């Protein structure tokens, strides 16, 4: 059935269709409606789950980790400062190899207080061992949450589905909510072999001596590597069942392009508009949308960008002292190939400032006016 839903409710409906058993969350703008709706669903019986109204995001993830360890499918959602408060437990969830799915609505970090969109909150959780997916529209929010459970439960790593505050979280769009039977067919019930079981008492997350810790970390990295193929398969199978297939990246008009615009989340939508416009003018411009941040799609990026003149990256985030985070990761990936493009990074849209089609057109024009980038990043739209 098609429903007109805000991005946040698309996430709630996805969790409902995935039949999560325990939800724990703490209110934070702009995530709150996700858990409000789930709370309603638990109360009116649409979802057979226990909803823990905990006293902090830290306890939200702590209780979800424990519930997942007891062998049930779990879900939580947060934003910005809430995600930062969870930081210790992000490592814990991944290290414990739990298939938790969490939505993070990308919101700028305080101070000063800002509730508007910015990716620095989740990108700065890069090294916690979570898979991260960034969604462009509300349909992709729904679809990504469903895929996230299937991916997480196969490779035993947690998955974070991220999308922009307000541009998606509070914006209504038509969303196809597939029938429950179809989702059941795609996503089998979660039935782990090992869980907290008094009939088979084991110790979970016990002290590990130096002779074994490194091997455990090796296995996490191995799972991350494997997750690329699993994510592709999960996205392809999603297309077979629901008619919408997904990959780690999406390349538009890139084959003969000299300039490739690289976007994530909602920035991809105005990006598409401008690339189409420039193509109509005969300009050799393409678009590369990145869906996954972890695992980072190194191979896909190299495949698409090999032989191109320039890559123009829009970063709605900043790593202070270095620059745009996506661009930095892309430069790292490109060291794998010889004929790599120059990478132009534009930091813009921080704290929810609009990234309009015009802004993107100006960014492309600026990059194309230069022979070589003379800086690792440029600011776009900065007031004097």
């Amino acid at each position, binding site marked *: 059935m098609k429903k007109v839903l805000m991005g946040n409710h698309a996430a709630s409906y996805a969790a409902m269709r995935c039949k999560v*058993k*325990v939800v*724990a969350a703490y209110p934070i703008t702009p995530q709150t409606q996700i858990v409000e709706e789930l709370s309603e669903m638990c109360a009116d019986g649409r979802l*057979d*789950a*226990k909803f*823990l*109204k*905990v*006293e*902090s995001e*830290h*306890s*939200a993830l*702590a*209780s*979800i*980790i*424990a*519930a*997942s*360890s*007891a*062998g*049930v499918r*779990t879900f939580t959602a947060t934003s910005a400062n809430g995600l930062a408060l969870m930081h*210790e*437990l992000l490592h*814990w969830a991944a290290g414990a190899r739990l298939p938790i799915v969490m939505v993070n609505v990308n919101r700028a970090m305080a101070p000063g207080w800002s509730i508007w969109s910015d990716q620095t909150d989740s990108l700065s959780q890069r090294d916690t061992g979570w898979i991260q997916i960034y969604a462009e529209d509300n349909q992709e929010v729904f679809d990504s949450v469903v895929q996230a459970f299937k991916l997480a439960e196969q490779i035993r790593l947690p998955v974070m589905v991220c999308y922009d505050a307000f541009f998606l979280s509070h914006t209504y769009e038509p969303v196809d909510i597939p029938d429950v039977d179809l989702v059941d067919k795609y996503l089998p019930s979660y039935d782990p072999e090992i869980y*907290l*079981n*008094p009939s*088979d*008492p*084991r*110790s*979970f*997350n*016990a*002290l*590990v*001596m130096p002779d*074994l810790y490194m091997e455990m970390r090796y296995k996490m990295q191995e799972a991350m590597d494997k997750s690329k193929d699993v994510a592709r398969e999960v996205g392809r199978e999603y297309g077979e069942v629901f008619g919408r297939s997904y990959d780690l990246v999406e390349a538009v008009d890139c084959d003969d392009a000299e300039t490739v615009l690289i976007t994530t989340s909602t920035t991809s939508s105005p990006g598409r508009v401008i690339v189409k416009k420039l193509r109509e003018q005969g300009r050799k411009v393409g678009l590369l949308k990145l869906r996954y941040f972890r695992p980072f799609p190194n191979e896909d990026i190299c495949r698409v960008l090999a032989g191109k003149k320039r890559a123009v990256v829009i970063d709605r985030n900043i790593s202070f002292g270095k620059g745009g985070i996506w661009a930095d990761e892309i430069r790292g990936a490109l060291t794998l190939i010889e004929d790599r493009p120059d990478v132009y990074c534009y930091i813009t849209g921080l704290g929810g400032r609009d990234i309009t089609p015009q802004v993107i057109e100006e960014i492309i024009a600026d990059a194309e006016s230069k022979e070589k980038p003379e800086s690792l990043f440029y600011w776009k739209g900065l007031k004097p």
Partner: protein
Amino acid sequence: MRENYPREELMMSGHLACQGCGGSAAMRHVLKAMGPDTVCIVPACCWTIISGNFPYNTLKVPILHTAFETAGAAASGVRAALDMKGQTETQVMAFAGDGGTFDIGLQSLSGAAERNENIIYFCYDNEAYMNTGIQRSGATPEGAWTTTTPEKHPKRGPKKNMVQILAGHKVPYVATANVAFPEDLIRKVQTAKKIYGTKFIHILSPCPPGWRISSEQSIEVARLATYTKVFPVYEVFNGEEYHINVDPKEIPVVEYLKYQGRFRHLKQDEVDEIQKRVDYEWRILLAKSMEERFRV
């Protein structure tokens, strides 16, 4: 052994506790009363080490090791999952030290208590961060030496009253217990198991290295803590109804303090101050228990 002392051992030998460890005696007694259909949550504390490193487990029940400040939340999560699976009879217990309860874990414990989660939370209280090498916690008694409260600047101010904090949440059952009185402890665990909601049992658990006592004195010193009224053993139903379970004896606190190296720097006037506070707190507790007897 007394009649209510269960024979079954759910804590096995080979654990890594120090000699005379009150925390390991507490676990042994508690598990006997909890029985095998139990999930045990352990935040960072001495028991992180005592239970054995991967892949060993000294307990015959599953242990979920969890982050320092999360015992209350983790117990809530396990409870929720078990309830959703229909395992409503399986007991969920948290077993946390005083640092994980009084200090860093207070928020998640308070959250669980306020929601009245159906769990039993045990705090084995050795009155400092013993696992990291004897640093003061909110449970360290007034005047005590620790490595962060040296003799020239010993712990100022009284020990935080966790029982009152939990009683203030109006949870159905809060109790203190003492490893020197195992029959009382076991009865309390059995009582707690029969009650739905959040149960909190605070167990005084001496630490020979931290208290500067020899290991064979552990139980003797613990017993004196209750007999001198320093650590009264009592229970509170629904945050209102107080019962004192072990009668103290007319022994001055100095008899408790003098055994322990952590108090050896105290001067007579400081001991007198401690005696005054102990007497004062005892009168309040007695009044509360009397009041309830009249009301009932």
